[in-house]
């Protein structure tokens, strides 16, 4: 059995490595994103800023300061000071303000959004008489490039796993290669294990390669253990590959497979916090995002890379990803079909 799995595993690896276009795209795409963001993103903020309001009361009294009446800014209440500071450090909010007895604000000097939000705040404050005091963030301010790196690596892993397995299996089924394999002693589970193993190995190698290069050139932040980060990548990739296999379990059209894979991947890319924090999103969106594997991958990876989280710290996300993998694999094996019906 192991020899059969290895035969399919090795053949798939060769196919991938020799498809130079696909290989290059897998490496080049995240690099382009990273460097593009590192050098260009700081010049352009998003349309909407997220500002934390440090206060104990649940509701915000928008009449307390003209800044609170500014349009296109999402104000969120934060009660705990330590939590609020961490959100500023981690780019989860662009600015933190407090309008109690003392009017103060905190901003991350590395945040391009924070810079613009601060300008708006100071302008509004000047109209109100200039009462605000700027405070220093006590912890390390994190650059946006540090924050976004896990997002880009995770997104690349997601596309590579979903399309690299889902699309390829559908192509195998459509062109009859799966039918040919079915006529051998190879079992569906062996084929699936080989595909999962091959894609996991290749995704981890490519991700490690891109991460190392980015880390060396941009000196990105890494507070935690590389082994923990590897585990997050492994378990996360496993969930994505399993999802790809489930989608490809019996689809016979590459066009349909492409549509389904896009249907799955784009919401994840938008709602899982690849580019910016979902802090300002409503609870419905946040609940939906928590069902996505990519959300757990990114939260875990950011916790390890930016906060030095341990395996125990990220265990809930790892368990969630493992559970998702088992569900996807189980359903994929149940519905798997070698040939078109």
């Amino acid at each position: 059995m192991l020899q059969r799995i290895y035969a399919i595993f090795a053949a798939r690896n060769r196919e991938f490595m020799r498809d130079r276009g696909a290989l290059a795209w897998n490496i080049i795409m995240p690099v382009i994103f990273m460097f593009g963001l590192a050098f260009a993103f700081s010049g352009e903020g998003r349309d909407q800023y997220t500002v934390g309001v440090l206060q104990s009361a649940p509701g915000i009294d928008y009449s307390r300061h003209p800044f609170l009446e500014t349009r296109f800014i999402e104000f969120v209440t934060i009660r705990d000071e330590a939590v609020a500071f961490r959100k500023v450090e981690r780019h989860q909010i662009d600015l933190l303000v407090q309008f109690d007895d003392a009017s103060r604000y905190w901003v991350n000097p590395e945040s391009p959004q924070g810079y613009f939000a601060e300008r708006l705040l100071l302008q509004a404050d000047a109209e109100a008489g200039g009462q605000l005091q700027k405070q220093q963030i006590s912890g390390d301010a994190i650059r946006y490039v540090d924050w976004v790196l896990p997002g880009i690596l995770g997104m690349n892993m997601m596309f590579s796993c979903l399309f690299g397995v889902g699309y390829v299996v559908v192509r195998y089924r459509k062109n009859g290669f799966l039918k040919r394999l079915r006529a051998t002693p190879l079992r569906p589970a062996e084929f699936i294990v080989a595909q999962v193993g091959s894609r996991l190995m290749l995704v981890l190698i490519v991700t490690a390669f891109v991460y190392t290069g980015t880390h060396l050139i941009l000196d990105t932040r890494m507070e935690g253990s590389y082994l923990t980060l590897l585990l997050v990548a492994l378990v996360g990739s496993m969930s994505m590959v399993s999802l790809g296999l489930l989608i490809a379990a019996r689809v016979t059209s590459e066009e349909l497979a492409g549509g389904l894979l896009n249907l799955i991947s784009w919401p994840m890319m938008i709602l899982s916090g690849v580019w910016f924090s979902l802090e300002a999103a409503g609870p419905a969106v946040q609940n939906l995002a928590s069902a996505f594997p990519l959300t757990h991958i990114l939260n875990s990876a950011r916790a390890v890379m930016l906060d030095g989280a341990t395996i125990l710290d990220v265990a809930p996300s790892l368990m969630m990803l493992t559970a998702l993998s088992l569900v996807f694999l189980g359903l994929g094996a149940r519905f798997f079909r070698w040939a078109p019906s």
Partner: protein
Amino acid sequence: MQTALEARNLVKRYPGVLAVNDVSFAVAEGCCFGLLGPNGAGKTTTVEIIEGVSPATAGEVYYFGKPAGHRFREEAGIQFQNTALQDYLTVRETLQMFRKLYARRADLDRIIEDCSLGDLLDRDNRKLSGGQRQRLFLAVALVNRPRLVFLDEPTTGLDPQARRNFWTLVQRIQGSGTTIILTTHYMDEAHVLCDQIAIMDEGQIIARGAPDELLQSRYDGLIIELPLDDLTDELDGIDHTVYESLGIVEIVTTDVSKSLESLAPHVDNLNRIKIRQANLEDLFLDLTGHSLRS
């Protein structure tokens, strides 16, 4: 000689179509069995049911007396009519990959030599010609030292020389005692290679036996063939079986001289008359009323 393969009452039904209708046959070990018929006759569907790649609506398949299962997949070699191989792999890597899927393994060097793949080992699968691909497909079907080989229209699309070479190869495989199931719509191919044939039409077997025996049982004599346009009037006085198809008139006779003598007054150009033996194509036309390749 024991029975290598037995199909019992196979049925395959698609919505609105009965593709295989109660097909049964048995194949003795070491025999080359041909399943013949025109496109759409149901022969590929029948073979795919036996191979286990397509489920039957009803019926059973036995391999050496037992229901075909894991042992069958381990010992059967299959050359599909239409299939694909993994992209970016060389011929050598493809053979090695498939060989590792089996517990029974053939000597790869021997297969490479038999299938004349020695010069192609490092070539990408995608860059093989039609004949080279067919030889590779056959080699893939042989990597497990099969006791039973399925060849599904193996020479379709090959030039005459490549077809002849392929036949030689198949005869060599059969010479080693391997049982062969061949589907084809080339009657000359079946006649050369097969010990037993079954002719299928519209999902059913309509004739079965050794090719020569089938022909002898049906045709007692030779066939005189001439263009319909060369006839000057009706052949009412001819006391023989007469067929007409696609502008050609065929007369089955046991006495060629006498037939030609009675035919001469009705024909304006005797130079275009042909005399030949009956073949499987004639048999099929006779049985079904339409051409094998229609």
